[in-house]
């Protein structure tokens, strides 16, 4: 059993009893801040600078040639912890010169922003580098339906990002130059 020890408090000194030194110390901090740089942003008139790698609203991006990158592999749908992503896979119709060889593309792509937790797993898992969490951070709506971003909205938010691979263009070149058949 631990013993209980009762400590004796020292009596307060005169200056401590007046509280004046403590008030002065506090005011010193207050007044010193008046001459420092302002850190408060006047949001929403003023917007913060978003750092690189910020995880904002997930978006779908197109390659610099304006082509859809997503092939609806549904890995993001699988990895999404709150099940915010819902994809209806579809195929690229035969006869589409530019995209025929990619074969697959999403028919519909929905991200429910009421469910999304901005974890960025979808961006990490995407084998086509088609989904990015970009710098958009404020999304709002009047109804639940409005908060579900469909494919059109996702491409509008995403825009175009630089591409260092042009994976499917390489594939097309190989096909055209013909290695084999």
């Amino acid at each position, binding site marked *: 059993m631990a013993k209980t020890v009762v400590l004796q408090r020292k009596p307060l000194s005169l200056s401590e009893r007046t509280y004046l030194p403590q008030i002065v110390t506090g005011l010193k901090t207050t007044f010193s801040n008046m001459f420092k740089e302002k850190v408060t942003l006047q949001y929403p008139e003023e917007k913060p600078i978003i750092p690189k790698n910020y995880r904002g609203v997930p978006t779908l991006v197109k390659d610099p040639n304006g082509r859809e990158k997503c*092939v609806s592999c549904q890995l993001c749908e699988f990895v999404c912890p709150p099940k915010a992503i819902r994809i209806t896979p579809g195929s690229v119709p035969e006869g589409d010169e530019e995209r025929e060889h*990619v074969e697959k593309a999403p028919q519909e792509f929905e991200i429910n922003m009421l469910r999304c937790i901005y974890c960025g797993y979808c961006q990490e898992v995407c084998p086509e580098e088609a989904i990015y969490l970009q710098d958009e951070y404020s999304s709002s709506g009047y109804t639940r339906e409005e908060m579900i971003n469909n494919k059109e909205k996702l491409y509008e938010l995403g825009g175009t990002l630089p591409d260092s691979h042009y994976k499917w263009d390489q594939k097309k070149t190989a096909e055209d130059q013909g290695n084999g058949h």
Partner: protein
Amino acid sequence: MSSNGNSSMITINLDGKEVDVPAGINIIEAASIHGTEVPHYCYHPQLSVAGNCRMCLVEMGTPMRDRGTGEAILDQDGVQKIGWIPKPIIGCGTNVSPGMHIKTNSSMVKGSQEGIMEFLLVNHPLDCPICDQAGECRLQEFATDYGRGYSRYVERKNVKPKRTKLGPRVTLDDERCILCSRCIRFCQEVVDDDVLGFVDRGSFSTLTCFPGKELSNNYSLNTVDLCPVGALTSTDFRFKMRVWFLKESPSICTESSAGCNTLVSSREGEIHRITPRRNDAVNDSWMTDSGRELYKQVKSEDRIVTPHVSSEPSKLADAISSASELLKDQKLAIVGSCRSTVEEQYLLTKLARNTKAKKFLRGHFGEDDGILLSSDRTPNLRGALATGFSVKYPTDQLSDLSRALSKGQFETLLVIGEDILESGISQDDLKGVKVVFLGTHKNQTSALADIVIPTLTAFEKTGSFINRTFHLQSFKQAVPGPAGLLPDLNILSSLINSLSVDGDQSADLAQIWKQLSKSATSIFHKLSFSSIPSDGLQLNGEKWSELDFVEKKALHFSPTKQLQEA
């Protein structure tokens, strides 16, 4: 060298351990019995051995003997020396022999596997994100398990045709093909429809149909299941759903009395595909293409989803109570179905006994293809015999019922799923006769029925069927039924309960099986629903050997009458 006194078992040495295996099997099978995986692509237990993928390379040695005298050669410790073959051998094409030594994880074997994987991946497009096989692909699995982990190949890959239509249901992606020839052997050996072959040589080799032919037989989709990679894809399932989302439920195909074992793949209550489940006593690993399309009936346009009383939509409970009002104290005839489960047929028999109703059974018949599509196009005709619903072999035309109706012998008809207007009953016959229809889909009979009670398809309920070889097989619910509907068993049991004085019929499968197995003369004696194993249970159908079953000789089936003659 026999062990345990069992002459069909031999002892081999697998990775340094002495194990007993049946004689005559190959190294892949022997290793798998003892939990060791020998990776393979071209070998399939139900097809001939081709030995062309070289993935199953293992090291093998046999006990050494002197060639002249035949005496065992011993080492210093007096143990017989093992003569190791200097190069690896294929596990699929080598049968085990007594005393054989096998190494499945030596550095030579690992080196061979890495080498083979590297060669297979040289021209593989690696388009897993758009490949339907991803998630159940042997190439993906073995690349991670036995592959090198990185690619040394910098040259440009071969380009081959991507969307070749081999037939109405199968699409070929040539780039992904690893030339294992399983599909070719399947068509030759199982279906006896030789349509596929390889053309060109080396890395230009391509799978193709012979000129003027196409892969259109009713078993073509089995080649898709057989394909260890994503080369052969089902045109119906192509790009529809990734396999890792699918929940697989064991089921039985309802197409014919062959009773193929199946897996029903669904996601969130929607069925996406049906694939065969291996059962060496029934369907090996195959099923028909037509059977795979049956899932479409679940969401079809003509599905009955609301109960109707006198053509007015009503609640299910109201429909059931008005049905029992209609059936009470009437001259009743029941038209049963060979598509009902064993349990439903039992309850229907009981209902007929309680109401002193006359029983009629309709069969459905078609062409027999000699493999897995039998002439009897219902899954449970033998169930109707076994439960005592019918003693006669059913026919397509209900001429007995037609005659009785024209004489005015019946006031009420209870029809289970069947379209009686299609089987020789005319609208005039039904004048003044009340019809209660229980079924899943609309037909002419449901259109004129006074009471329509919707029931569930085989995908939405649990039960059992008896197939053409009297093999009792159970199936599990794969997806939930339409909102507000009840399984057939519940509807039948509430009809029984409301029609009899001491109604205590349970709709619970275990309870029904207790009643079914009570009689010592029943072929269900001492059985219970939970005791039916996943690969089914063989029942003794001798009692009905005098009946003229229509099925012809087929895979794992020979007609009993012919057997007796032979």
